[in-house]
């Protein structure tokens, strides 16, 4: 955790990720990156800017447009002693790697009774909101989180991104590490000089305290939640905002603790509205804390459509602060 005394520096999310990855590569010779355009091109999202120059082609490996082989060869390299940080340019293309991720990355450790470990991180850029259209606009992490054997990370700010990526690289389990495209330029603070700053795997986080309603989010959802909380505060409603940070392991303790206090909950996420993360949380809450429920739990998510190109149509399908405020008002 960032303590009050720690010296901090302001930075963009992409730079926080870049620092985390760069420091881990300096620390551990076994860590390397691979993926499309990660090297000479400096990374599609500039997260690996300067890596090729510093670490050279051995540790910064450009690949063909071969998602199955990127994910699958990362599994093999991890089994054989390296610690790959593989990049799939956007999570949409990770559909092509689903088998390698679910049947191999997530299962090799179990299937062979612990003989092999798969210490790999698969970085993916995720989300939508800039007319990227239907095939390029998914936030589908829930389908990966459905399966045991994999961790799924979804940071909502530079500090968490920094500590979560480091923790993921140092962990011996495979991690799908999802980075919100819309938030790459988000500003925040990270430790100026603490290369061992880690966010514990599977710990969600209270991002704002409040006693009237619990708003649960992850990644971009957290920002909509915080914006909504500010708005609600004007009306005297104090929302507690909880950032899941990891979809696996899913840590609902802070959500339960909050709900015991607020008895009301809204979940907000960028994903599609059916069979999403919010469904699991609502199902769990009503099961575990039935007696604390003062109102139905509401979900705010995208509309149930493929995403269109037209900007106005597209935005109308995206969750936002106002939709969160509205949902909160319905449960108050």
């Amino acid at each position: 955790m960032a303590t009050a005394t720690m010296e901090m520096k302001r930075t963009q999310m992409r730079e926080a990720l870049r620092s985390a990855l760069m420091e881990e590569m300096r620390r551990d010779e076994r860590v390397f990156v691979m993926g499309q355009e990660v090297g000479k091109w400096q990374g599609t999202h500039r997260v690996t800017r300067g890596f090729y120059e510093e670490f050279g082609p051995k540790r910064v490996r450009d690949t063909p447009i071969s998602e199955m082989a990127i994910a699958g060869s990362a599994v093999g390299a991890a089994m054989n002693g390296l610690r790959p940080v593989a990049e799939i340019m956007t999570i949409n293309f990770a559909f092509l790697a689903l088998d390698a991720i679910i049947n191999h990355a997530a299962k090799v450790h179990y299937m062979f009774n612990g003989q092999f470990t798969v210490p790999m991180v698969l970085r993916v850029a995720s989300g939508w909101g800039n007319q990227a259209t239907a095939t390029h606009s998914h936030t589908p992490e829930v389908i990966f989180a459905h399966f045991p054997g994999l961790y799924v990370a979804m940071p909502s700010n530079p500090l968490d991104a920094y500590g979560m990526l480091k923790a993921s690289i140092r962990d011996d389990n495979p991690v799908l590490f999802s980075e919100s495209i819309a938030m790459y330029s988000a500003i925040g603070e990270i430790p100026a000089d603490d290369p061992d700053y880690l966010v514990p795997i599977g710990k969600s986080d209270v991002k704002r305290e409040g006693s009237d309603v619990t708003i649960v989010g992850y990644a971009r959802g957290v920002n909509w939640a915080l914006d909504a909380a500010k708005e609600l505060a004007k009306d005297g409603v104090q929302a507690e905002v909880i950032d899941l940070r990891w979809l696996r392991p899913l840590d609902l303790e802070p959500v339960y603790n909050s709900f015991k206090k607020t008895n009301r909950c809204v979940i907000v996420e960028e994903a599609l509205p059916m069979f999403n993360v919010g469904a699991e949380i609502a199902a769990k809450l009503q099961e575990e804390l039935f007696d604390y429920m003062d109102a139905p739990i509401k979900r705010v998510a995208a509309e149930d459509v493929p995403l269109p190109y037209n900007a106005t149509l597209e935005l109308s399908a995206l969750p936002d602060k106002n939709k969160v405020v509205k949902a909160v008002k319905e449960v108050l």
Partner: protein
Amino acid sequence: MALKKDELLSMYHELVLIRRFEERAGELYASKEIGGVYLHLANGQEAVITGAIHALRETDHVITAYRDHGHAISRGVDPKYVMAEMFGKRTGTSGGKGGSMHIASKEHRFWGGYAIVGGHLPLATGIAMASHYRGDDEVTLSYIGDGASNNGYFHESLNLSGVWDLPVIWFIENNFYGMGTAVEEAAGNPILHERAQGYGIKDMGRIDGQDTLEVYEVVQEAAEYARENGPVLIEAMTYRYRGHGVSDRLFESDARADEMTQFKERDPITVMAEHIRKRDYVDTEAELKRIHERVEEEVEAAIKFARESAEPYPDELYTHVYV
């Protein structure tokens, strides 16, 4: 079968039209009239579009990736509908829902641009399979990026077409790069047409993708072959003058600059003009000039149409999710 004058001029017109259409689209993207994160221009690659598509019949089929404006125009789609799509308007080819990467026109048997690299290749196999199934005398022309040729889709789709002897022309647009990655850094063997053998597909080798007429002739031969016998693979060497997408910088290096100079010397429009000049028509220069002027008007008319077209209705967000 030598091409007639009007055919040559019409190809020339099309090359210029596609070039200007896309140059203007780039400007409109810069000025934010065209939105979004993706706009992929084919400046420099017009010959592989026009040459190949003109070699087909109206009943044949065309499919490609996201760099698709020119293909639609070549197939006969009025540029104004393509421009309107990029503006996200109701009048666009996809009603404003598809955007630049997803131009299609069923009536022109242009099955669309597709944004998942390699994702359209099995669709091409399936489209050709349906023609074959019905006994229709149609071929499917499927474009393939050099980068796309390293994707699993390429392997499975080409192989299946070989197993089923389908009437497909697999046409690699080798523009030397997939984003910033050079062919030889992405393919174990950078001579991509040599992959044909592994699939039992007729290998038609490498061709000059800057010369519209060479492309035209080879694709005509390919179409004849494919209609009778099954799939063929062609690798056309070409070059894109701009970044991968308009918002991407060009990858800078001396080697790259040399390539660019070399290819610009053999620009598709120049090469085509030379072909026409060689014919010694009386009024060549005037005709060519008129074409350029006409193109300016056409492109501006398309922009005007796009600009003045209406946005989709809000509830169109929900239409066409299901039939």
